[in-house]
């Protein structure tokens, strides 16, 4: 019994140590790094943002925890526009995926992509304007 407790404690310690290492690695990542590819993706996202704002405002589109966006409430969009909003969301997510991948590559650590994605997820949520919807820890939606 004591042996098992020691094993469990060691395992716990190991996991804690591993997580600290992982976190410190991502903290070491330069999220502001710039390359031609990153600049191009950011420009593409910036030019799309103006079209997305009205859908963030209406609650049709929300920010997910994994650094993406999703159609949260299609009812807030006129029927004839739902397909184009879908395409906007899809194009934005393609850009975001590419952005996280490029930042990880530019940091010479492609394996950091998922951690960079979650860090950005939180960053987008923090930067969201009042009234915008975002996903919470419990996979439900909250309004800023």
């Amino acid at each position, binding site marked *: 019994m004591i042996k098992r407790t020691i094993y469990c404690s060691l395992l716990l310690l190991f996991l804690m140590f591993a997580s600290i290492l992982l976190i410190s690695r991502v903290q070491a990542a330069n999220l502001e790094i710039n390359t031609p*590819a990153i600049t191009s993706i950011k420009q593409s996202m910036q030019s799309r943002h103006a079209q997305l704002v009205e859908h963030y405002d209406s609650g049709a589109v929300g920010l997910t925890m994994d650094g993406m966006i999703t159609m949260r409430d299609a009812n*807030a969009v006129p029927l004839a526009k739902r397909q184009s909003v879908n395409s906007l969301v899809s194009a934005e997510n393609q850009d975001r995926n590419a952005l996280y991948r490029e930042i990880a590559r*530019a940091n010479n650590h492609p394996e950091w992509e998922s951690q960079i994605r979650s860090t950005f997820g939180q960053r987008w949520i923090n930067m969201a304007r009042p009234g915008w919807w975002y996903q919470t820890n419990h996979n439900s939606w909250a309004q800023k």
Partner: protein
Amino acid sequence: MCNRLIIIIFAALVLTLYVLMLSASAADFRFALVLDDIKNPVFEAQQIQVQLTHGSSGAGRLDINIAEIKVQHDVWKNVNVSCRTFHLEQKNINCTSGYLNIPGLLSYPVSLHLDSDSSLLKIKVYPTKSEDWQFTLQWSHTSWQGVVAINNGQLSQIVAWWPSYEQMPKLSSGKINGVARLQGDWSGLKIASIDMSVDALTFADQSGLHAGEDISFALKSNIARSMQPNQWDWQSDLYWQDGEVFWQPVYMTGDGHHLSLQGVWDDTNVRLLDSSLILAGIGTFNFSGLMSRTGNQISAFKLVADKVESSTLFSQILKPFLRDTSFAEMEVTGHFDLSLRLQEGELQSISLDWDDGSIIDSRDRFAFHRIHAHIPWRAGSTTIADISMLKGHVLNIPLGAVRVPLEINNFNLFLPQLVLPVLDGVLKLEDFSAAYTENGWQWKFNGELLPVSMETLTTALQIQQMHGTLSGYIPEVSYDGNNVSVNGVLQINVFDGSVVVHKLMLIEPMGLTPHLKADIAMRDLDLELLTRTFSFGKMEGRVDVDLRNLELANWRPIHFDARLFSSPGDYPRRISQAAIRNISALGGEGAVVAIQRSFLRFFEEFRYSEIGWRCALRLNICFMGGIEPELQSSYMLVKGGGIPAITVMGYNQEVGWQELVNRLQRITQENEPIIQ
């Protein structure tokens, strides 16, 4: 279903009364009946009370109260049917101002007429002032017929009775008009027909991803018992006339689409015969098939479509499904004929004939014009597709007319040889093969690039114009679903020297930010050709360039270790004043040209023994060096040799890559050489 049961109960009770009253006189009387319960596999009714008060004038009042009706999982309590003006005659029953009340569900005026002479029963329900539902049943000793006529039926009222599921779209409004007719004999139904129209239909699910608004459609349907036992002949036509539907991810408007289905239905199979789907603006799809009712499996299916409009089909129906792929921004034009056949759920054959089509990427990454294609495909055998294209381009590189005889075997493609005009040269592809695997399409080929002039290539790529020719042998090139790799080395002849590309890999070529990785070794490049190309100022000699760990993102360099140095050998080594100025610009503001100004400024050209330049590109910064790695703050770019000799030193060890490119492009003369 529930409605029908209520009416049946109602009619059954009235009929019971009728039978009872046949023996009754016309005098005043009061009749009361109490039933404890009625049970049936479908429904249960408890405490049924029937009261009939009848006066000598023939008029009376009927009240039926049912304490509880249970139909499957639905329970209604205190159901009441009352008839304030109830006429009971020997051969007629009339209830002209009746009322049906099911608390919490409906409360409708009803009327009833029963005529035993003509064996006719009519029940009319008036849910609202402008809405009525009429049920008529007439019978003889051999046959019967029923009619349901609906006038302005509100669908929202009907769906309140339907079972509701969270994921299922909910209907919020809609009007139905029309007639359903049923005919039969005492062995059962013989013929049924429906002629209905639905207007202003609106529905949506909770997420709004499956919704429709203001939809109008008409349904005409007939079903008739066949001469064969347990077999029915049926035919249906559905016309979608107006409104819009978004069914994730497809959006369509009702512009006159028409679905026509006909066939035979028996206990084991549903057979489709000569059916069709007309999609307005797209084309007509004719189909037939056989589906087994046990297991709902498609035993056979055949589809034929002629002159289908590719553009509308692709943009409205196919493209939304491709929105997460590289084809999301593709436009397709032309017409095609299509036929396909399935047997036992397996695809047996497809034949596609595409006439005068084009495929255009809206990001301008590729375009193929005037495509004609005959593509036959048969399961388990080899077919030859004939595909031709008049012109096109890939990544701004123009392609000429080409005809492709492609061998197709199941999901494997093979092309022994293809000669593709590229600019003013030719790309010869050999042994092209492609296969569809669990990781998507994978392909490989080898080939040869016959001379393409650098002038046309650089013009097409909109980069600095170069002279010379590009040609080379292309070893095996393969695509694994994500990346294009060149297995072996790629050899190119350019600037009278040779370029060998190792470890060439193109990552996500059709992605948003394609990456190219390679190691490149250039040998014996003619400096005169090179410098003339870039208007750098005349230099004579030969150079070798090693470009290791090269990585381009979006076709722009983000990483490399470059080293340029004089090729070994004996050849004239001269450099012009203009070239000296431009080399000094590479070294930035601090560059110094070591030259004896007083004596050598009169010379247009100088001699050198060695040239060297290094650049390690990291995060947009070029870390520069010269002939030899220098630990000090200066490095030698040109080492003098002979008379008159010149030595060029560089001092700027770090320069922004874009700045360096800009300097080269401007051929700046800001850094005047220092003549020593």
